[in-house]
């Protein structure tokens, strides 16, 4: 670290406070831990089933992560502010159907227009969530549990029993999900770029630090003059927007979309965020960690598939992953706090 090379005098002025150092170290430990677990899974599964580490399979894993990862980025921002967004799956489903339906109803509509409409819907739904949470003073869990069912209900109301099929949408749209740039699938590049942008924003901008601040100590953040409501609103808007964008990609990737698309996905998204080391109590965690969390869960899903374990195990596994991650976080945090306190004394 930079601080180690500084002279003691400078360190007194510039070194980050012990609390920040501790949380950073937890973050690094977590990310390293996730990588180790990933590696263990790869080795463990590849020994009996070598096709698990074939380039094609690795690509499939990353492809299945890509859409989820975009949503996970938004969810990470929301969770950092000590909130949660359960409505993401309903937004994905609604936008996926609407964008498919647009192609069906208006053949020849330009792809850019559909993407713009889809993103606008996501943004609008996220805005509603955010307004209710920040200015309405309603807890995020209540708001997004409600809108999870409201948005899904709208999806059903619009879709009825209808289904969008691959022949309803133009090939150019489906290509969004299968195109490659320099041999790398476009989806993966999109997800990586979005994740990188928000990771940099969080790490290096004032806005990013403010997001951490309101999550780790809302009262102190308020006294420091940070506009909490505005920031919380912003994170929900971003989460909605990214979910909307993910919905469009969902339609492009799976082509067949009905009112059930992406049902229950919110649990996978929350699980990815929590497993990735983002504290559900807000204020700590990184986009990189959340991405690793998403990749880890997708890898395990793929491993179960390759090992011929029934997909019925998946949901139980997501639940267990959430619980284990939260338990682990709490235990580590407590241990660190205790050691920090004793060191200071």
């Amino acid at each position: 670290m930079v601080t180690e090379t500084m002279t003691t005098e400078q360190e007194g002025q510039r070194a980050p406070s012990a609390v920040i150092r501790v949380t950073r170290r937890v973050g690094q430990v977590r990310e390293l831990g996730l990588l180790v677990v990933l590696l263990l899974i790869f080795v463990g599964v590849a020994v009996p089933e070598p096709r698990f580490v074939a380039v094609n399979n690795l690509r499939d894993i990353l492809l299945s992560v890509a859409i989820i990862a975009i949503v996970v980025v938004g969810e990470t921002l929301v969770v950092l502010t000590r909130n949660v967004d359960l409505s993401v799956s309903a937004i994905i489903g609604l936008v996926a159907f609407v964008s498919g339906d647009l192609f069906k109803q208006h053949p020849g509509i330009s792809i850019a227009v559909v993407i713009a409409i889809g993103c606008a819907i996501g943004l609008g739904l996220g805005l509603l969530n955010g307004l209710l949470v920040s200015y309405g003073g309603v807890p995020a869990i209540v708001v997004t549990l409600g809108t999870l069912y409201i948005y899904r209900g709208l999806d059903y109301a619009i879709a009825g029993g209808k289904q969008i099929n691959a022949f309803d949408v133009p090939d150019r749209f489906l290509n969004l999900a299968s195109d490659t740039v320099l041999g790398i699938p476009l989806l993966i590049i999109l997800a990586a770029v979005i994740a990188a942008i928000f990771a940099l924003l969080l790490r290096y901008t004032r806005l990013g630090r403010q997001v951490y601040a309101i999550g780790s100590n809302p009262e102190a953040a308020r006294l420091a003059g940070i506009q909490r409501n505005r920031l919380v609103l912003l994170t929900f808007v971003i989460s909605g927007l990214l979910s909307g964008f993910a919905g469009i990609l969902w339609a492009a990737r799976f082509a067949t979309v009905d009112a059930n698309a992406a049902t229950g996905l919110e649990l996978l998204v929350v699980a990815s965020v929590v497993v990735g080391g983002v504290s559900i109590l807000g204020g700590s965690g990184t986009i990189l960690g959340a991405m690793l969390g998403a990749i880890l869960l997708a890898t395990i899903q793929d491993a179960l598939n390759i090992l011929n374990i029934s997909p019925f195990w998946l949901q139980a596994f997501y639940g267990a992953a959430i619980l284990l991650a939260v338990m682990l976080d709490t235990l580590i945090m407590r241990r660190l706090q205790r050691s920090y306190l004793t060191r200071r004394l």
Partner: protein
Amino acid sequence: MRRAIRLISLWEALLVALLLGAVVLGSSLSPYFLNSNNLSNVLSDLSEKSLMILSMLLIIIVGEIDLSVASILGLSSVVLGDLWMHNAPLAVCIAAALAVGTLAGFINGLLVTALGLPSLVVTLGTLALYRGCAYIVLGQLAVSNFPDGFTTFGFGSIPGTLIPWPFVIFVVLAVIVILVLHGSWIGRQLYTIGNNQVAARFAGIRVARIKLILFTISGFISGLAGVIFTARFSSARADNALGFELDVITIVLLGGVSIFGGRGTLPGVIIALFVVGILRNAVALADFPTETQSIIVGGLLVLSVLGPNAIVRLQNWLTRKRVFATLITYVQRSRT
């Protein structure tokens, strides 16, 4: 304090108006709505939810939440079905279903109290975990060859009346909850915990133990609801009662219980139970599918917290305005 009381009674008046509105809506949407058979259907449809709101009420009053109730219902239903499929006697199946529900609730409580984790995350995790366990046990299978006596208990009524059997259980449990919550020291302890947990602990209330007991009760009640659901539809499936937590939490919050704990009464919640039950029934008679009905329930959920917030804010704003007005007249008068 007086304002809080005024707010509650105002809220209950609003609920009664909403209930009347729902009845008017129902009878205008369908001629069959006021039919006594249909009203019996409303009660029957509320069988499980009416029980689950009782434990949810207690949990929310102490400032926690249980999102996993519907998953526990599904899991206990599946356990019942799986044992029955393997030729266990019915009594054993029911006992096992209740035991699994209780255990599931106990695990929730343990994670919340012993490890100090937020109940929101714990029960979101177990929402997925318990439902997942239900899928692991039965997969896509459905068990449905239950004996007549069992299913009659599920959808039959008290002979000579149109009151379904499960509703009797609700009435008995509701009386117990009213007595305990509004007429005993236990109830006062629950409100104290919800209002100020730290103060409650300093006052010698065993907060952790009470919460553990409440989560365990919630698990038991959800298990019981699982048995009733299985009997009512004569079907044990892993996806039974999917999404019921929305209705249960909506009813409790709509009934005037504060999501932040410490405030709320059973009578309000019971009115809210019928509001949601009648609305769902009315809209179903008008041929709207369950998923579309959920738009209304989800909307009610958000409004039930947004409404009181808005009222309090409006009151504050009016008070401030009045204070300003008095201040200005006072200043003007002192000048002349």
